[in-house]
C-alpha cells in the first residue's frame, strides 16, 4: 500500500468559517445523465461539514468536492475530483463539484497549463480524499467504541462487520470534522480503483448544453457597466493621444480614458508579457454601445522606443528583457531566419565529431522547415469582470494562472494582495493564451477608475491583434550518410523570433554517435507566449518530417527506422541527459503500428507516421489521407499514447481528438503575418480555422495500459500530428511540405482546400 504524508497538503486543512463559491452554478455528477429520477435526486443537506478545503459532506451524505484548478476545457473539473472521490471512497453519483475560487492559502497549485494538472495533483488530491476518509473512520470508531482497523468503508458507507454497525458518511461528518488529522495515510492500490480508470461524464455537461452562465463573459451584477478597449494598431507603436470628445455624447457612453498596466517601479514577472501596457478604455451601458464607440474613437499613435527592463524569470531569477523598436514585417522575418541556414548558431549539444563526419560523408541531406506566428484564437475572447471599490477588489475572469497575475493586479491597483479576490471562471478555451492574464488587470483598472463593477470584453479583432502569439520558427536538419546509406551524423540548427524551439536533449539525441544541435534567436517586439506544447509544436513537425525523408533515403520503413534508433538509445545511449525513456517511446510506435495495421493500409490510403515525447508523455500517430474529388481528406487518425494511468478514459480520448484536430487545422491553415507591425488578420474571415468539413472523418486514441503515475495529456497529442499529416500528404501528392501552413501549397498543386 502506498502511503502519503499528509503534510504535503496541510494547507488544505486550514479551516475557514465561510466557504467561498456560493451562488454559482452547481455541477452535479449525476445530472450528467440528464434528468435524474426522484429517487436519484438527493435533497440538499441542511448542514455541510468541511473535512478539508477539497471536501464538504452534507448531513445526508451528499458530497461536495472543490476542483482547485481553472477549467479551460481539459476537463480537470471532472478528473481532479475523481481522484479525491476515489480515495474518499464515495459513490460518484452523490458527488457534486464546485469550482474553487483562487485561494492560495488553501490550495497548492491553481494553475492550468503545461499538461500538469493530473500529474501534479495525483498524490495531493488522493491524499485529501484518503485523509478525509480516515477522519470519518476515526469518528465511527470513537462513536461505536471499536478499533479503527476493524472498520471498512464502501461507497460512502462506514461499517463494522463484527457488531453489524453501519453509518453513512453524512452521519459521521460532523464528528469527523473535529477529529485529529493523521500524519501518514495509506493510499489505495491501483487494482482497487473503482472511479479512476472508469469514464465519468463532464460534471458541467448539462450546464453547457443548456446554456447556463459559467464564463466570465456571462457575469452580470446590479449596476455593472460595460467596457471596450482600444490598443495600438501595430506592434512597435504606442499611444500618443486620443480625443475623448470623439465618443462622448454617443449613445450609452459614459467615459473614455487611458489605463497603464505597469507602474514605473514595478518589476515585471515572466508572464507579464503584455503587448500594449497602455490602452484606451471606453465605458458605457452595454457591450454593443461601447463597441460602436470603439469605431469612432480618434486616437494618435506613435512609434515606441526600444525598452529595456529587468523581469523576474521563470525560475525567479531576474533576466534582462529588451523590446526592440521598429515596425516589423513577415517578409523580413523570413529573410532574416533564412540567413541562419548558413550562419552558425549557439552549440547546445555535441556528441562525437559531427563536423568531421559531415566532411567525409558520401551524401548529405539538408532540409529547412518553417512555420509562422500563430494566434491562439480561443473561442471566448479575452474579457473579465471586476468590482473595485476603495481598497477592495473582486475579479472574475478567465485565467489559467491566477497566481501569476495577482502581483500585477496588486501593483496596478495599489491594493494589498489580501484584499484582492480572484474567482475562477470556466474558460472558453485557453491553449496557453490565458496564462497571460492582463485582461484581468485591465478590467480591474477600469473598475477602479469608475468605482463600479465593470465587464470588459475584447472584440475578436482586439483578441486576434493583441498578441501573445506562438513564435515563428525555422529549423534546418542535415544528415550525413556513407556510400551504404548508413547514418554517420545528424545536425539540427533551429531558431525563431524571438526564441529557439530546440530541445537539444530529446530524440534523436542519444541515438546517434555524431550529433550536433545549435540554436539561435532573433529579437522582436511582437509579443509571444506559450501555445499548446510550446516549441514542441513546431520542432516535432520538423524533426519527424525529416526523419521520414531520411528513412526513405536510407530505404527503410519509417517506423522500423525510428525503432532502430530507439533501440540504440536504449541499449547503448550516446551522451548524457537524454530526456526520454526509449522503451516507452518505442512502445507507442509499436502500438500505433499494430492499431493502424500499418503494413496493410486500405487501397488508395496514403499514410504518414510521426512520434514525439513531451510533457512527460509519449505519443505516436498515423494519419491516413485519401484524395477525393481532387481534395485531400483525412480519413482516419490513429494515436497511441503512453501517459501512464488514465484517470478518465473517454474524456482523455476527447482531449486527444481535439489536439489532433487542432494540429491538422494549424498545419493546413494556421498563420499570422505582419505588415508594418500590424497583424494582417483580425477575424475568422481571414484567419482560417479548421471546420467540420476538414476535420478527420475518424480518430482513434489508444492508451498504453500501465501502472505509471499519470503524465501530461492536453498537449502531447498535438505536436506529432503536423509531421504525420505532412508525411501522409507526401504519399498522396509526391511532394514534401516544408513550410507551414500547407494549404496554400496544396492549392498551388491544384488541389481543393
Amino acid at each position, binding site marked *: 500500500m502506498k502511503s502519503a504524508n499528509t503534510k504535503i497538503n496541510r494547507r488544505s486543512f486550514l479551516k475557514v468559517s465561510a466557504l467561498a463559491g456560493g451562488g454559482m452554478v452547481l455541477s452535479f455528477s449525476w445530472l450528467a445523465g*440528464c*434528468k435524474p429520477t426522484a429517487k436519484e435526486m438527493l435533497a440538499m443537506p441542511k448542514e455541510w461539514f468541511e473535512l478539508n478545503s477539497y471536501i464538504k459532506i452534507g448531513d445526508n451524505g451528499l458530497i461536495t468536492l472543490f476542483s482547485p484548478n481553472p477549467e*479551460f*476545457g*481539459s476537463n480537470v473539473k471532472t478528473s481532479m475530483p475523481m481522484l479525491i472521490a476515489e480515495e474518499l471512497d464515495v459513490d460518484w453519483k452523490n458527488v457534486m463539484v464546485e469550482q474553487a475560487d483562487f485561494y492560495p492559502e488553501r490550495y497548492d497549485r491553481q494553475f492550468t497549463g503545461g499538461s500538469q494538472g493530473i500529474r501534479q495533483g495525483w498524490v495531493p488530491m488522493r491524499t485529501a480524499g484518503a485523509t478525509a476518509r480516515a477522519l470519518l473512520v476515526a469518528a465511527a470508531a470513537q462513536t461505536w467504541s471499536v478499533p479503527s482497523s476493524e472498520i471498512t468503508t464502501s461507497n460512502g458507507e462506514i461499517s463494522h462487520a463484527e457488531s453489524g454497525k453501519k453509518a453513512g458518511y453524512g452521519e459521521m461528518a460532523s464528528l469527523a470534522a473535529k477529529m485529529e488529522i493523521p500524519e501518514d495515510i495509506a493510499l489505495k492500490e491501483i487494482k482497487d480503483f473503482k472511479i479512476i480508470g472508469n*469514464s465519468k*461524464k*463532464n460534471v*458541467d*455537461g*448539462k450546464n*453547457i*448544453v*443548456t*446554456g447556463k*452562465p*459559467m*464564463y466570465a*463573459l*456571462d457575469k*452580470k451584477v446590479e449596476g455593472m457597466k*460595460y467596457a471596450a478597449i482600444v490598443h495600438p494598431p501595430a506592434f512597435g507603436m504606442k499611444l500618443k493621444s486620443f480625443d475623448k470628445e470623439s465618443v462622448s455624447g454617443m*449613445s450609452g457612453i459614459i467615459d473614455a480614458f487611458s489605463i497603464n498596466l505597469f507602474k514605473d517601479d514595478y518589476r515585471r514577472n515572466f508572464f507579464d508579457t503584455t503587448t500594449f501596457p497602455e490602452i484606451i478604455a471606453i465605458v458605457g451601458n*452595454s*457591450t*454593443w*454601445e461601447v*463597441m460602436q464607440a470603439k469605431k469612432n474613437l480618434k486616437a494618435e499613435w506613435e512609434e515606441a522606443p526600444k525598452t529595456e527592463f529587468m523581469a523576474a524569470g521563470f525560475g525567479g531569477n531576474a533576466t534582462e528583457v529588451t523590446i526592440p523598436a521598429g515596425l516589423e514585417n513577415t517578409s523580413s522575418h523570413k529573410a532574416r531566419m533564412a540567413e541562419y541556414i548558413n550562419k552558425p548558431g549557439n552549440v547546445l549539444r555535441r556528441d562525437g565529431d559531427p563536423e568531421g563526419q559531415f566532411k567525409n560523408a558520401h551524401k548529405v541531406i539538408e532540409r529547412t522547415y518553417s512555420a509562422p506566428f500563430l494566434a491562439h*484564437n*480561443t*473561442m*471566448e*475572447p479575452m474579457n473579465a469582470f471586476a468590482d473595485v471599490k476603495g481598497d477592495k477588489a473582486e475579479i472574475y475572469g478567465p485565467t489559467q494562472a491566477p497566481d501569476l497575475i495577482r502581483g500585477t493586479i496588486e501593483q496596478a491597483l495599489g491594493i494589498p494582495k489580501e484584499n484582492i479576490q480572484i474567482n475562477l471562471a*470556466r474558460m*472558453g*478555451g*485557453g*491553449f496557453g493564451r490565458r496564462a497571460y492574464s492582463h485582461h484581468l488587470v485591465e478590467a480591474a483598472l477600469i473598475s477602479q477608475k469608475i468605482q463600479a463593477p465593470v465587464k470588459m470584453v475584447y472584440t*475578436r479583432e482586439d483578441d486576434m491583434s493583441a498578441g501573445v502569439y506562438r513564435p515563428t520558427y525555422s529549423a534546418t536538419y542535415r544528415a550525413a550518410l556513407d556510400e551504404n546509406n548508413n547514418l554517420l551524423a545528424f545536425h539540427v540548427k533551429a531558431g525563431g523570433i524571438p526564441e529557439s524551439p530546440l530541445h537539444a536533449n530529446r530524440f534523436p539525441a542519444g541515438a546517434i554517435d555524431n550529433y550536433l544541435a545549435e540554436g539561435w534567436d532573433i529579437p522582436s517586439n511582437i509579443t509571444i507566449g506559450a501555445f499548446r506544447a510550446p516549441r514542441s509544436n513546431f520542432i516535432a513537425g520538423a524533426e519527424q518530417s525529416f526523419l521520414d525523408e531520411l528513412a526513405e533515403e536510407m530505404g527503410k520503413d519509417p517506423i522500423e527506422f525510428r525503432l532502430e534508433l530507439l533501440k540504440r538509445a536504449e541499449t547503448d545511449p550516446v551522451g548524457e541527459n537524454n530526456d526520454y525513456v526509449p522503451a516507452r517511446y518505442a512502445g507507442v510506435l509499436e502500438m500505433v503500428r499494430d492499431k493502424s495495421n500499418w503494413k496493410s493500409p486500405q487501397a488508395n490510403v496514403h499514410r504518414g507516421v510521426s512520434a514525439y515525447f513531451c510533457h512527460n508523455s509519449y505519443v505516436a500517430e498515423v494519419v491516413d489521407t485519401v484524395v477525393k474529388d481532387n481534395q485531400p481528406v483525412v480519413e482516419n487518425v490513429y494515436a497511441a499514447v503512453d501517459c501512464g494511468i488514465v484517470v478518465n478514459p*473517454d474524456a482523455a480520448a*476527447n482531449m486527444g*481528438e*481535439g*489536439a489532433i*484536430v*487542432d494540429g491538422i*487545422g494549424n498545419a493546413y491553415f494556421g498563420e499570422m503575418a505582419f505588415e508594418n507591425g500590424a497583424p494582417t488578420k483580425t*477575424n*475568422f*474571415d481571414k484567419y482560417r*480555422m*479548421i*471546420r*467540420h*468539413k476538414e*476535420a*478527420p*472523418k*475518424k*480518430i482513434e486514441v489508444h492508451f498504453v495500459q500501465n501502472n505509471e503515475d499519470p503524465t501530461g495529456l492536453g498537449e502531447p497529442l498535438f505536436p506529432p500530428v503536423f509531421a504525420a499529416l505532412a508525411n501522409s500528404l507526401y504519399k498522396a501528392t509526391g511532394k514534401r511540405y516544408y513550410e507551414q501552413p500547407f494549404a496554400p501549397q496544396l492549392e498551388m498543386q491544384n488541389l481543393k482546400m
Partner: protein
Amino acid sequence: MATYNLKINGKSLQVDVDPNTPMLWVLRDHLDLVGTKFGCGIAQCGACTVHMDGNAVRSCQLPVSAVESSEITTIEGLSEEGDHPVQKAWIEHDVPQCGYCQAGQIMSAAALLKSNPSPSDADIENAMNGNICRCGTYTRIKAAVKTASQNL
C-alpha cells in the same frame, strides 16, 4: 432608441434599444439570456446561433429591428428540461471540452434535424460548417448528431 416586443422562447419580452443592436447583445445584455455566445461578431464562427422561426441564424448579424414578430429560440428555450434529443446526445457522447461553442453547435444541429431528420455525413458537415469549435470536438459532434437523429 426604440421599443421592441419580442417573442423569445415562447415568452413576450420588451426591450428598449437602438434599432441596429444585434439580437446577440439584446439577448445577452438586456434579457440576461447569456447562453448564446459571442465569438466573432461577423457571422463567421456560429457561437451566436439561435433559431428564428425554426431556422438557424447568426444573432450577431441580426439587428433587433429585423426580428419583428418572428419567434426566436435560444439554447435556454430549446427544451424545458434540457432533454432535447440533441442535448441528450451531446451528453451521451460527452462532446464539450471548453463548451463555449456548444450552444451554437447544438442550435445548428437542432435546426438541421428539423429540416432533415436523417442527414448524411455530408449533410452534417455542410450544415455545421459555419460553427467553429476551437477545441476540435468535430468528430464527437458528428457522432452526436447521428445519435440524435435516431432518437428524434
